[in-house]
């Protein structure tokens, strides 16, 4: 319980919007998009923490902040291994077509992190590349091929091999299977799970797909408009979702076992992040909202089953916990 690999506290990333001359002349202040706004969570060593949410909720921005590809405008990302030589972060992105250089043979691409970080003497690089290719289910001979010679799933395997080449202790996966067909997605998810168990990796996993999240995660955070609305151990989240938004997401998910189910009416759309609603950002769509929800921003509160929920209605006991199975 105490072995925390990553601590994110009150993290913020506000993107300033271009200030127009007219607005400046009228004395209005510049607008900003609060892509990530006061997010905090911990990840235990060797575990996978997942972030789920709909487009524009800030999950990818958060991934970039954790990977150090972007600088927060407030708050902290603290790795407990920071400063140690063993501390390395690697990323796997959604589109394996875009993240591999088409002019590099994949062996060269995989060797790049090894050479750049001088992890191995030159003579040991090629054998290591071959070992990595085999580890992700490809053949050593594939090192001489170019990315276009592979299918989408194989290219994602190459991306994974390249991420592993840097001997990472921490892996950030941003929608790694969203561009893949379902049978190939299953191969990649199985591979990621197996590699995590073998290598003891700590993972931050981003997806919009709740079923994928269920398959890979120990803990899940649900994001809505830049904030975490619920954080819970995976089983708790799927069996007893508490935040009305989490409940809505799960209810809206088309499932194989609920043929012909009458959809509960789901109201409204995600508001513009430029003009987020006051109080709890979910209140215009929430069936349990009252005056307090419209004015007061809820913060994450601990629940007895280990989950944390940011909702006045839950805190006041206004919502019965619905059970999903």
């Amino acid at each position, binding site marked *: 319980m105490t072995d925390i690999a990553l601590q994110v506290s009150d993290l913020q990333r506000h993107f300033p919007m271009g200030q127009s001359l007219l607005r400046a002349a009228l004395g209005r202040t510049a607008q900003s998009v609060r892509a990530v706004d006061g997010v905090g969570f911990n990840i235990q060593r060797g575990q996978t923490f997942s972030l789920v949410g*709909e*487009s524009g909720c800030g999950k990818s921005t958060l991934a970039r902040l954790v990977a150090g590809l972007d600088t927060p405008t407030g708050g902290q990302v603290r790795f407990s291994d920071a400063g140690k030589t063993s501390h390395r972060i690697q990323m796997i992105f959604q589109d394996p077509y875009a993240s591999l250089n088409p002019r590099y043979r994949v062996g060269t691409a995989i060797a790049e992190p090894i050479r750049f970080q001088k992890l191995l003497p030159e003579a040991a690089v090629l054998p290591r590349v071959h070992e990595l290719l085999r580890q992700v289910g490809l053949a050593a001979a594939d090192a001489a091929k170019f990315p276009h010679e592979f*299918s989408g*799933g*194989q290219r994602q395997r190459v991306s994974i091999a390249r991420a592993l080449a840097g001997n990472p202790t921490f892996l950030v996966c941003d929608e790694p299977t969203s561009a893949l*067909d*379902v*049978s*190939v*997605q*299953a*191969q990649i*998810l*199985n591979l990621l*799970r*197996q590699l995590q168990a073998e290598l003891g990796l700590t993972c931050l996993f981003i997806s*919009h*797909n*709740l*079923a*994928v999240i*269920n*398959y890979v995660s120990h803990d899940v955070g649900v994001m809505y408009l830049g904030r975490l609305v619920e954080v819970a151990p995976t*089983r708790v989240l*799927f069996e007893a979702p508490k935040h009305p938004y989490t409940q*809505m*997401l*799960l*209810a*809206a*998910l*088309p*499932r*194989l*076992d*609920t*043929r*012909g*189910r009458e*959809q509960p009416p*789901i109201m409204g*759309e*995600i508001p513009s992040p430029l003009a987020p609603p006051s109080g709890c950002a979910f209140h215009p769509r929430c069936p349990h909202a009252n005056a307090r929800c419209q004015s007061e921003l809820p913060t994450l509160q601990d629940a007895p089953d280990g989950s944390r929920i940011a909702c006045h209605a839950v805190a006041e006991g206004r919502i019965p916990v619905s059970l*999903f199975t």
Partner: protein
Amino acid sequence: MTSQALLRVQHLRVEIPTRRGVLLALDDVSFTIAPGEILGFVGESGAGKSLTGMAILGLLDPPGRVASGEIWLGERRIDTLSQREMRLIRGKQIGAVFQDPLMSLNPLLQIGDQLIESIRTHLPLTHEQAAARALALMRSVGIPAPEARFTAYPHQFSGGMRQRIVIALALCAQPELIVADEPTTALDVSIQAQVLHLLKSQCREQGTAMLLVTHDMGVIAETADRVAVMYAGRIVEIGPVADVIKAPVHPYTRGLMGAIPSLAPVTGPLAQIDGAMPRLNARPDGCAFHPRCPAATAQCRAQSPGLETRHGRQVACWVHQASQEAA
């Protein structure tokens, strides 16, 4: 059954001639859709599910062409019609909804005008009557305050609202059939649920038939009455949704169902179909699935199986046929 069918597709074969030879994109595809029925088409990228929809709409991109087979809409054969005749059928008898609503809408026209144009193309109405119908359509697809949005442009709508407008366009002449190609793939899950609900209630209330193309088995499970599973340009299994999901027969369908992660507690690795679907220029002989099939026999490698009907379900698999005959 065949006499009641609204749409009959028989032995459809679509070829794409290229410099390196003719690619077989659809091979011996046969199915029917009854009025008011939703038939789902599911499969992986390149399996031919979108191409089936495009062939029915008469919108195959050249050089792709229908090489043989027949498509019947009611009593009329439509695959041999000229582009001009087909244009009158599209919009009037067959509506279309595609993945990206922005591609289906003219960015320079107010959406009220786009609806009126489509309505007057197909129905003998005055401008005022068409405008009234456009407003009623916008209301029926769930656009709040349609009078106020009538003069808005597509970019002023959200993705979900745009897709509702495209559905209103598809419905403007009360078509008998809607071809919906990945209609909710670009939408978030809560908006997807709204749009699926809209399409489903439309079919139920107006008796409109729908061909729903998607890669998402969950969408099929919640929306369709029957499902056709496609692999490498052929239908490998077709039957009632509940049967195919609960008891898939074809080895590919079985693998596909096992590969879909669910919300249930994780008990072990997902079922895996090793390898990937062959590209069109590298189709193996015999059954196209045999290199990935755990049960493949010599017959599978030599001969392509046809769809066999048993217990209301059609399956194209030699191994399944042999086991049925033995039983």
